[in-house]
């Protein structure tokens, strides 16, 4: 959040100074606000470590408030013992977690980007997590709203609605903590603990199944064709770090958000052994990467080690993390085969 405010402030300052010439830039600012969460969780990443625990306290403190202020929703009070019965999720990640820990029946609505699992799709509404409309959310009379961005938390709590916020984490452990917190907030502590245990076991065994390469391999994770990337201090970067892979974006130390925009020259000279494309739905493919001027010299391109990833799995820190770790393992296996052959 701090990072985002800083950027916005920079732009705003620029506009102020440029008042006579730069009247166009507010457009860019507005768009930045809406697009940033879409392209990456960059805006919310920085404080995740500190914010996640803090927000976990929110449901505990605000749940009573919800019941005391909830004269209008007497029905939800009667079932309070079993946890919230009218949950709205405005984050695809948390939607997946809710259904994975058995809280799916308590969910009454999910945002327009939530598309997994199949049961969740039936509950998709036109509510948006990027441009949340407080009135529309309140209209569903929820007793818990699950978010990945704390922007509207104060307004919802003002209305007596309990809120749980889990921002994009920087490590797997933080992601697991969020699953456990969501379990506690919805009355599914046991299932959540079980899921986390399963994920830990799965990831450990997947990582153990891949033999360490003779020389350390380097990777480049591409978020879009302007070369925004993800370094090891992101949950997706952790999937590579788990295998001891070197992330070429880690050299961009100044970028605390974890999602630096890399320079094309720097990518080529870093010469990554593997490239993961998270922009396949925007038309990028191993072919388009190979066709980029100067990129033909990169080891990953020369050896056909450019992989298109499932963007949903790669941008969500929910129960499908292990799937992504498996995908990386499969890719590494292919690299080993092509190197051996």
């Amino acid at each position: 959040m701090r990072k985002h405010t800083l950027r916005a402030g920079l732009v705003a300052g620029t506009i102020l100074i440029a008042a006579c010439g730069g009247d166009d830039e507010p457009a860019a600012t507005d768009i930045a606000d809406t697009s940033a969460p879409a392209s990456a969780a960059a805006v919310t990443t920085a404080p995740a470590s500190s914010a996640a625990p803090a927000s976990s306290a929110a449901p505990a403190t605000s749940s009573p408030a919800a019941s005391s202020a909830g004269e209008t929703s007497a029905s939800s009070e009667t079932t309070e013992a079993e946890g919230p019965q009218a949950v709205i999720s405005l984050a695809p990640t948390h939607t997946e977690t809710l259904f994975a820990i058995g809280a799916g029946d308590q969910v009454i609505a999910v945002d327009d980007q939530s598309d997994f699992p199949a049961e969740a799709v039936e509950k998709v509404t036109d509510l948006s997590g990027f441009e949340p409309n407080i009135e529309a959310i309140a209209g569903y009379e929820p007793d818990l709203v699950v978010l990945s961005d704390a922007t509207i938390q104060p307004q919802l709590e003002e209305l007596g609605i309990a809120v749980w916020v889990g921002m994009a984490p920087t490590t797997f452990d933080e992601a697991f903590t969020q699953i456990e917190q969501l379990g506690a907030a919805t009355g599914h502590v046991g299932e959540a603990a079980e899921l986390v245990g399963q994920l830990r076991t799965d990831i450990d065994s997947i990582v153990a199944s891949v033999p360490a390469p003779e020389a350390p391999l380097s990777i480049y994770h591409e978020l879009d064709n302007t070369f925004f990337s993800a370094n090891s201090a992101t949950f997706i970067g952790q999937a590579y770090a788990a295998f001891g892979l070197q992330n070429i974006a880690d050299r961009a130390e100044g970028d605390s958000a974890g999602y630096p925009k890399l320079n094309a020259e720097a990518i080529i000279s870093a010469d990554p052994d593997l490239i993961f494309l998270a922009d396949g739905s925007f038309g990028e493919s191993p072919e388009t990467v190979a066709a980029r001027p100067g990129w033909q010299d990169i080891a990953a391109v020369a050896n056909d080690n450019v992989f298109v990833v499932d963007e949903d799995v790669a941008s969500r820190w929910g129960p499908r993390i292990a799937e992504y770790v498996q995908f990386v393992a499969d890719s590494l296996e292919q690299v080993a085969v092509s190197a051996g052959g």
Partner: protein
Amino acid sequence: MADTAASARRADGLGAVSVGPLDPGPALDADAPAPAGRRHLGQVGWMAIGIASVVVALVAGFVVGPAGPTWWRTALELLDRLPLVSIDSGINEAQWNIVWQVRAPRVVLGGLVGAMLAIAGAGYQGVFRNPLVDPYLLGAAAGAGLGATLAFTMLRDVTAGWVVDPAPAIAFLVALGTVAVTYVVGGAFGGQRGGVTLVLAGVAVVSFVTAVQTFILQRNVEVVREVYNWILGRLSTAQWDDVRLVTPYVVVSAIVVLLHRRHLDLFRVGEDEAATLGAPVARIRLVVVIAATLGTAAVVSVSGLIGFVGVVVPHFVRLVAGAGHRRVLPLSLMFGASFLILADIPGRVLTDPAETPIGVVTAFIGAPFFIIVLRARTRR
């Protein structure tokens, strides 16, 4: 602004002299002998400085970067590539690929963009007789952004079969429409078109256009990233294809604006006076505005929205070389090119291996610089 009239009246010799020939209509191209002026350097001297600045900027742009060979090796290699020169620079093929395929198109494209934005700014300022007008203030850039948004959303199906890339074309049309609205609104309420009213009209129209664009984007979240990328530009991912794409537009619109340099000097005296002297005021204004808007929309389509160049560079030129358009226009073109090429260098190396957007650099350098220029102007 009062400033316009003042600067026109002040005219530090140059403007008044070049208005001298009383047959401005047909004598569009006639290069009348350079008026001496009070500046130390003659026309040739200034043009030489302009060209030198572009050469220096180009070389600096080519040799400085986060990767690739050491800077002096690149310089040697550049010399080696000149005809009749043979030097062993010790650069291998892969390193040269980085310089020539990745860095060079970006440098050249930056130069084209800077040149176009600066001369378009100078052209707008000339025809509107307003030193504050630039492609951004008039709404050309905002209009281009809205046009691109429309191309990616509502008009996507309609334009699916087009031979040409619809985004720049629609961006240009909407940009032109936006400038026209700004102009009509500014004129309708202000009486005098050169005044503050035009600036205020620009502010209002840009806000409106921006609001429409934001609304459309909110209805189409799935294209936000696409549109955002388009608006931010792809200077950092420039290829030679991009250079080929914009060069014709830049050349044509720059030539058209340059051809009107004498007419623009007439405008400085006043529209009525220009009309009295036989200049077709309305036609000149239309042609220059269309040319400048076409060029702006074309470069915005590859570079994204880069502020400040169109207003800072012409002001700087007027300050150092005088306000006559036979200097302001070509020097804006050349200094604009070198300014943007140089401004792009910090973006590449400061946060290596990450990028700093060029718009940040231009505003960071441009804003304080602009204030200095303004102070210098008011003191004289």
